[in-house]
């Protein structure tokens, strides 16, 4: 595993606000790496520290082993795509793209070739002589990407570049960005608070909350093995059932949840008597059929028809469990549990994650 | 280190810029304060602090100040009335600020005061309207230069106000008048008051227009200051007294603008004109 960009022990505070709290991670060459987290968690701050717009209070930022903490932004050789694009309003699209090359002393035919190449890459040929305000949001976004890419930076940084676009265009640009990143092979650090966007684009994802790293991993890892309650909640939907460890054996941990005893795969570091959460996703919850040992009794409070699946809200002794039942047919609807029915709720132990309370 | 040297130069530049700004900000006020409080400072100089000059202001300038404040006060009231009319017009959609109206109302702002004064004299020195030499012409002139500011400010305020609030209030059962009074008026009132205070300031400090059209023996504060200045020629040249009255005027202007700023909570400087 090659560590291309390495961030180690980064701290940053704005007065009393601690924006980054000991953040460390490494990005591989050619990787598409995403920072995902709720609003205000410090994603932008982290990106701005890497770009050099913000000075971290402590920590190291290195590309290919070269520490660039004290380099000014213009010496760092990173491309930055801003949330609101920050296209220079007094210049045409062409001049915007050419700017970085001019700063590198390029001119004439070479400059023109590189600019055209970049405009081709983002499919903007023919619009190069328009000014930013004469371009649509999506077109502006493409210019911003071309402008950042044309200098062939060592790193491409993007701060929620799609958040200003409408839903349809966002889908389109998502595929575009992934295509461009694949074509150029540029190592990319991408910021978003949209989980779907992060999943569809990234090789790996870093989940942040309140300035701290919560988990780093692939989409599957984040989804199926959330490291803690925050990740479980933030990524997709999860039922969190409060419980208590009864016994911690070699292979499994026995937990008492809502008056029932469940035997779950072992999680190290848990002692009997400890309070825990059992996290299970709605699509893994089954109703009516009791598979055996992990089995709870409840009553359907509400049933919602959502097209591809039915969503049940089941009341189990005061706690609520959400269950998504898919693969339904018109004929099958009637035979499924109705509102007010008593049901048994079950899930496979393998689909559960034990989280410390 | 070169970095350290650069930082040193920047620090020096900071100090120089701060000094320059400080001079700009404080020097005029400071010299006025100093002069108003010094025993004698004209051809000769006698140190020592005194309140004599400031206390003499009401004596020497009483009439002038009263006239200036009266004219400015009437101008302010008229501007408030006009601002309210404009606001009401926009509210009831009688007029959407057509460009002809805008241009016409704004014209006084592009005409030099001296020229406006001359035009008013020439138009009203003979029948049918013989107003030249009366206070009425002075008042009219001041209204013409102050009301455009009120018009413009009011328009800006109305543009920034969401008029669908009226509809929202009416959908909740308020009559049109109640909706305007309870919802719109509190929103725009600070703007309207600010507009009329600007009119007050504009009128109070005006020199050139008053110089042209003020009746002969009608004293006004800005004109009166000058009688006390010309040390070389004036019989009663008195720097101290001139400084004292200037200082008083500055204090009035500053407090008026302070109130404007406080009312609008925004930058006020867009409203001051040529």
């Amino acid at each position, binding site marked *: 595993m090659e560590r291309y960009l390495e961030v180690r022990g980064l701290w940053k505070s704005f007065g009393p606000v601690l924006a980054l709290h000991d953040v460390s991670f490494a990005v591989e060459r050619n990787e598409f790496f995403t920072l995902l987290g709720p609003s205000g968690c410090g994603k932008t701050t982290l990106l701005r520290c890497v770009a050099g*717009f913000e000075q971290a209070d402590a920590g190291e930022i290195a590309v290919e082993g070269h520490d660039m903490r004290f380099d000014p932004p213009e010496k760092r050789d990173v491309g930055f795509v801003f949330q609101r694009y920050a296209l220079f309003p007094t210049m045409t699209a062409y001049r915007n793209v050419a700017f970085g090359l001019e700063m590198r002393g390029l001119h004439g035919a070479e400059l023109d070739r590189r600019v055209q190449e970049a405009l081709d890459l983002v499919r903007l040929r023919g619009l190069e002589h328009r000014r930013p305000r004469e371009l649509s949001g999506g077109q502006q976004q493409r210019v911003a990407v071309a402008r950042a890419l044309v200098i062939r930076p060592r790193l491409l940084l993007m701060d929620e570049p799609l958040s200003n676009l409408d839903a349809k265009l966002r889908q389109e640009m998502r595929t575009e960005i992934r295509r461009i990143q694949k074509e150029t092979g540029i190592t990319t650090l991408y910021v978003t608070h949209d989980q779907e966007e992060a999943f569809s684009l990234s090789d790996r994802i870093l989940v942040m909350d309140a300035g701290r790293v919560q988990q780093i991993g692939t989409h599957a890892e984040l989804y199926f093995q959330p490291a803690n309650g925050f990740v479980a909640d933030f990524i997709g939907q999860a039922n969190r059932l409060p419980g208590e460890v009864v016994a911690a054996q070699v292979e499994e941990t026995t937990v008492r949840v809502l008056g029932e005893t469940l035997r779950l795969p072992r999680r190290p570091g848990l002692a009997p008597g400890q309070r825990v959460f059992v996290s299970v996703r709605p699509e893994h919850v089954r109703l009516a059929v009791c598979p055996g040992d992990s089995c709870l009794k409840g009553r359907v409070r509400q049933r919602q028809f959502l097209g591809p699946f039915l969503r049940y809200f089941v009341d189990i002794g005061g706690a609520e469990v959400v269950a998504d039942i898919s693969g339904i047919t018109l004929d099958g609807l009637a035979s499924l549990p109705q509102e007010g029915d008593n049901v048994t709720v079950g899930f496979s132990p393998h689909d559960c994650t034990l989280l410390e309370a | 280190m070169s970095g350290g040297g650069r930082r040193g130069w920047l620090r020096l530049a900071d100090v120089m810029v701060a000094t320059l700004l400080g001079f700009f900000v404080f020097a005029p006020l400071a010299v006025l304060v100093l002069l108003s409080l010094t025993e004698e400072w004209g051809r000769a100089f006698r140190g020592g602090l005194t309140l004599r000059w400031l206390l003499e202001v009401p004596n020497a300038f009483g009439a002038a100040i009263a006239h200036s404040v009266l004219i400015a006060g009437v101008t302010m009231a008229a501007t408030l009335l006009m601002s309210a009319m404009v606001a009401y017009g926009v509210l009831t959609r009688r007029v959407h600020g057509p460009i002809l109206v805008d241009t016409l109302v704004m014209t006084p702002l592009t005409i030099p005061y001296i020229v406006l004064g001359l035009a008013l004299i020439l138009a009203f020195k003979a029948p049918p309207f013989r107003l030249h030499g009366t206070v009425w012409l002075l008042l009219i002139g001041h209204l013409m230069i102050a009301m455009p500011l009120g018009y413009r400010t009011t328009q800006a305020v109305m543009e920034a106000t969401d008029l669908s609030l009226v509809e929202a209030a009416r959908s909740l059962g308020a009559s049109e008048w109640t909706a305007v009074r309870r919802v719109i008026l509190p929103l725009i009132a600070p703007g309207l008051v600010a507009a009329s205070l600007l009119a007050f300031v504009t009128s109070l400090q005006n020199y050139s227009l008053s110089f042209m059209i003020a009746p002969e023996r009608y004293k006004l504060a800005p004109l009166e200051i000058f009688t006390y200045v010309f040390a070389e020629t004036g019989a009663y040249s008195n720097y101290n007294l001139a400084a004292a009255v200037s200082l008083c005027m500055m204090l009035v202007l500053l407090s008026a603008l302070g109130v404007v700023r406080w009312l609008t909570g925004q930058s006020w400087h867009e409203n001051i004109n040529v």
Partner: protein
Amino acid sequence: MDAARALPRVGVTAPGRAASVAKSWIWLGLLLAPFLLFVVYPFAALVKTSVVTPTGAFTLRFYQDLFAIPRYLDKTWNTLAIAALTTTLSLLLGVPLSFYLWKRQFPGKRILVNLLVIPYMTPNYILALAIIFLFGQNGALAFALRRLLIDPEYRLPFNILFTYHGILAVFIFHSLTLVVFLVLALLAGIEPEYEEAARSLGASSLTAIRRVVLPMAVPAIAGAGVLVFSRVMVDYVVISLMGGYRYATLAVEVVNRYFGYLTYELAAALAVFLSTMTMAIMYGYLYWFRWRRRA
């Protein structure tokens, strides 16, 4: 859209209701009557005075005089020269100063910038007085030096009164704060992202400002320039207070002709000429601004 706005348009809530239309016009009339009567009509009277001989015949003689008699050409030249000089100098000083204030942080900056309100709203004649009190031969500086040098006869090596540089100093003092204010107000609205974008593309801080931020500030700088220029151009009070009749401008000459020589027609012609210039500059700027927006 702009063409539509250029036409006088009286809005009516309920389309087709005659009463409403009439009300609109009455309302408009109420608003406009004072301006028609006390601005448009007097201006027409002014123009009329400038093109009619005392016997009542039409003539352009007075305008010909303006362009033929060296005295008036001088005044025009004086006016344009001092306005241009003031504008150039206060922009040259004020624009870099604004950018410096925008970029740098130092203790007391915020307060000082906010207090610029004071010189900004000081009437120009009070500013002129203050400068005379400060730098005149009987001013604070002179007295201080007399004390310091123990020489009661000491005179400053420069004169503020009756000199060109004295007048210029007052104008620049008065204009500089305007420039700084307008430019700073615009800069304050420019997101730091533009500069950051330029820097991430390899521009140094200075280059980023010169190539990216400065062009964005051009309208505000031009606007400040236009305001300064027209403010100086129409000035009467500073020049007469500083005793600069030798450097009389058109506004001063208007007053001279009218009060001094009682030649109304010439005064009127001068006044029309002067206001034509100020209007041309103001509206020229406005149209340039609109055109620039659209282009």
